[in-house]
């Protein structure tokens, strides 16, 4: 499994589209908006945006580990080739999960560095560490979401579906604009999404507030629900 993990990580780091989306895009947004003044959710704009962009980068990293790449590789036959090799389905998914988590690191490190250096953010090492742990565990439902996208869509549509879903999650979940400034109807939708609750956990950690069990429960429920869909689709395909 470690051989497979290393292989997949090297391959992802060559994927320019992945790097732009996961690192380039949040860094650019940060450079544009971090210098705005104001306080929100008990954080300066520079700190809030640093955390938001880290959440976006983490969500993307997790979804890119599976997502459109899986859809393309199901279509090209590479997944069939892997299935006749000794790697097991749980081993494969385990590697994908770890890949998604490890690839959070470059974006996260860059955003923390920018936040501290460029945005003059002051967060204790403990708070940064808590945010990192939240991102590692909190991106699991997004990794499973990528798996579902990769199993449901074909190679052509999965890319578009993934972009759309990511922007919707970020927008309605309050990652791009403040959730409280969204229309009421959108807030209701956003409140049900895993992105909102991952954001809540990360912002609360940054501001030194208590983490809510409710946010964690919603993320766990999403992971479990999507997991069931993924297992059902996977079985459907493997015994066809």
């Amino acid at each position, binding site marked *: 499994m470690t051989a497979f993990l290393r292989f997949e990580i090297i391959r992802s780091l060559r994927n320019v589209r992945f790097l732009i989306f996961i690192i380039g895009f949040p860094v650019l947004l940060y450079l544009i908006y971090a210098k705005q003044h104001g306080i929100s959710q008990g954080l300066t704009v520079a700190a809030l945006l640093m955390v938001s962009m880290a959440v976006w980068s983490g969500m993307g990293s997790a979804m890119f580990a599976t997502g459109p790449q899986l859809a*393309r590789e199901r279509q090209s036959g590479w997944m069939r080739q892997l299935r006749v090799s000794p790697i097991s389905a749980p081993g494969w998914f385990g590697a994908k999960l770890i890949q998604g988590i490890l690839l959070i690191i470059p974006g996260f490190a860059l955003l923390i560095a920018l936040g501290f250096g460029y945005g003059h953010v002051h967060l204790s090492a403990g708070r940064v560490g808590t945010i990192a742990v939240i991102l590692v565990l909190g991106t699991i439902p997004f990794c499973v979401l990528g798996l579902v996208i990769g199993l449901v869509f074909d190679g052509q549509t999965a890319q578009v579906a993934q972009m759309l879903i990511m922007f919707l999650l970020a927008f309605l979940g309050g990652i791009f604009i403040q959730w409280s400034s969204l229309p009421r109807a959108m807030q209701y939708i956003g409140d049900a999404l895993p992105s909102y609750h991952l954001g809540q956990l990360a912002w609360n950690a940054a501001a030194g507030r208590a983490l809510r069990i409710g946010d964690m429960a919603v993320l766990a429920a999403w992971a479990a629900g999507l997991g069931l869909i993924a297992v059902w689709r996977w079985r459907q395909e493997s015994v066809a």
Partner: protein
Amino acid sequence: MTFHKPGAAGPAVAFRDVVKVYHPDIRALDHVSFDIHAGETVALLGPNGAGKSTAIDTMLGLRAPTGGEVRILGGAPAAAVAAGRIGGMLQTGGLPEGAKVGELVDLFRRLYHDDRSTGELLALAGIADLADRRVEQLSGGQTQRARFALALAGHPELLFLDEPTAALDVGARRKFWRSVATISAHGTTVLFATHYLEEADANASRILVVNHGRIVADGTPAQIKSYTATRTLQFTTPSPDPAELLRLPGVNDVLVDGDAVTVRTGDADETLPALYALGRRLRAMEVGGGGLEESLIALTSGDGAGADQRTTERVG
């Protein structure tokens, strides 16, 4: 690393009354039974859609049979796959973008715990010079050989090749079959699917002819080729004499039913003039194929190099 005694548990492949139904009207495999023994090199020969790929998919555990039993190296296909005892080169086995050929082969030799170096495996597949090439930059033939290198990882006891030469030119095809012969000489059982009789003839020790989901013939290449030449002559003649008819050149057997006669011949061009030379009154003469016509005459009519025929091949 585990070592397995090849063929210790009976046949390498055992098909028992295997049925695969995709759709109530489509029987991809229709009560198929056969054994493949360790060390054999067997061709599954049949036209597109005959059931070759379905048969290989069930042997690799990629599809579950609707009925019957498939056993691989004495156990379930999934067990043989998980133990890394089989290698497969599938008909649609695209390579993952962003990877270099060397990385890919290195991954597979690690997955299969192969102690040979990446360079060795690349050389075996004839692509030692492509280690640093990205898979997106490979030609069709190079892709095919990279996939062959993956199939060789782990010294498989059983190697499945589904239409392995589809993207290769004549020279590359020859080199490819030479590598397969080397591997089979080291004891690997090889099963390959093809729709070219001459490819099966040149490279297999045994041919299974598949059509409409059934095994329609099973024999050595020489036996199978003799079937393809077989023709059936049907006619009526007053009081036929079987002994006389059996003496005609090329005749294999004669069936007489009143005035109606059926003669099977391996060389209709010799038999027919000799038959008329007997001076008998022959009526309602019909010349037909030898029973394998649908599956085999179609295969032998092409010359095997027809590129258009190859590109229209699809999973079947």
